[in-house]
């Protein structure tokens, strides 16, 4: 598994009730890339994500993770390689304590106890949640839940991180914290989100879905400048790329300001 490539070829999915959610989606994501899949509600984003670790079986087409096509035989390996963080952390944290929850994956991998312990502590440290280890999940705040959910996935040491709506329901501080954390990762990262400002900050590349088809795939800034495309897909420019109604800055100026602020923060 030298290159963590995600390749989707002409992927189609029709649900049992006849709804066609994906109608031939193709793309290729390379090692270390951060890619956002955006689109209106019902455009097929979540369906697409559920194919990436084999929870849904394609009606047509193919998914390849690394060097393997996704089949029943490669499923366990693929699920270890692709770490999925779901939208609602309450769905992901089901064990009695944070520690047990983060240990759930490594224990399922059959790792020895000391290795499990090490991985749990490493991943919790990574997301800054080691002080929460003995807490039950229902007593965490929204931001803490999200970070622990990410730790549960990191403990499997995946090569590819897939996250569905990572910033939903977080307060601005927790959101900022999370974006900072996601920036540090060197994994191949795939997000879906309606938080286009986050997308702009984290991803160089954006894939736009509409009615189960890829209508655009390219550099984030380029796509966010294409008003026509955005309108057709029920999207709009990220706020940081819009002109400011209060101080009268133009879009270009506010973009510069955002970039400067970003650079300042990165230092």
């Amino acid at each position: 598994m030298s290159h963590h490539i995600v390749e989707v070829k002409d992927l189609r999915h029709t649900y049992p009730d006849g709804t066609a959610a994906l109608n031939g989606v193709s793309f290729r994501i390379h090692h270390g890339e951060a890619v956002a899949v955006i689109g209106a509600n019902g455009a097929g984003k979540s369906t697409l994500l559920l194919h990436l670790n084999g929870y849904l079986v394609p009606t047509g087409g193919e998914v390849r993770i690394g060097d393997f096509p996704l089949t029943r035989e490669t499923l366990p390996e693929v699920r270890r390689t692709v770490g999925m963080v779901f939208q609602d952390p309450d769905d992901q944290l089901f064990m009695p304590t944070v520690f047990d929850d983060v240990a759930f994956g490594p224990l399922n991998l059959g790792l020895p106890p000391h290795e499990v312990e090490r991985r749990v502590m490493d991943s919790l440290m990574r997301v800054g949640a080691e002080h929460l280890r003995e807490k039950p999940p229902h007593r965490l705040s929204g931001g803490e839940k999200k970070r622990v959910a990410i730790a549960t996935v990191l403990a499997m040491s995946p090569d590819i991180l897939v996250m569905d709506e990572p910033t939903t329901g977080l307060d601005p501080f927790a959101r900022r914290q999370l974006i900072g954390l996601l920036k540090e990762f060197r994994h191949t990262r795939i997000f879906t989100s309606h938080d286009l400002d986050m997308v702009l900050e984290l991803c160089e590349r954006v894939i736009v879905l509409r009615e189960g088809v890829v209508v655009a795939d390219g550099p984030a800034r380029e796509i966010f400048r294409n008003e026509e495309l955005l309108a057709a897909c029920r999207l709009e420019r990220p706020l940081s790329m819009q002109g400011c109604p209060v101080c009268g800055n133009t879009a270009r100026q506010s973009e510069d300001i955002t970039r400067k602020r970003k650079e300042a923060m990165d230092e």
Partner: protein
Amino acid sequence: MASIEGALLDFKRLDRLAAGEMAIHRLDPRAKVLATLVFIITVVSFGKYELTPLFPFFLFPVVTVAAGDLPAGYIVRKIALLCPFALVVGMFNPIFDREVLVHLGPFGVTGGWISFASIVVRSILTVGSALALVGVTGFSAVCSALERMGMPQTFAVQLLFLYRYIFVLTEEGARTARARELRAFGKRGKGMGSYGPLVGHLLLRTWERAERVHRAMLSRGFDGRFHVRRPFRFGVVETLFTLGWSAFFVFCRLVNVPDLLGSLVTEVFR
């Protein structure tokens, strides 16, 4: 809807108590579960007219509450609200059982009243000890204790899952009920016509949540089996705790301590 939120808050409070750090919290949960079981069995094993010998048993819940630093007022209030069924049924005892058993000065006390009083004391004791057990142990620990004492894993896992999602679903239920409450005026809109779909919606959402949880489990390599770490240790302290309390209970079961004490005092002052 005040009741559902109140119940949830109450639930959360008891749950938080269990996170205490007193010495009794750190005991192996099996010791506490065993002692509580012996306690309950000895308490209910008294005959229906035995009232005074029950009193030494108060020592156990009281000491547990104190040692666990639980808020006594809260526990007492909780006990006071409980067991309406036992009380209602017990109320019939004085009506049906009128044989006078004891004379307190000029008053004759019937067997019915004595057995009713006994039912009340039993309720307080059994309920109090159960609450104290949860308060100093915590639900998940009680579950793992029971599992290590032979409860099937499937059921233990079921209890843990249930416990985890009670918090999520009660909040969801409370939100739904509130939404109905806000648009229902008086009794209107709160009948069965709206109840069926409301519960139906909640059920569907629950079902979908179960599917999402299952997905989350699969993506972390779940294969139908649970691997849980077990940090407990049944050491000397636990053995002493269990044996000590059990010996006390059996002793109080066999010797009527209050009667002894009372007669001693009346003898002295005679």
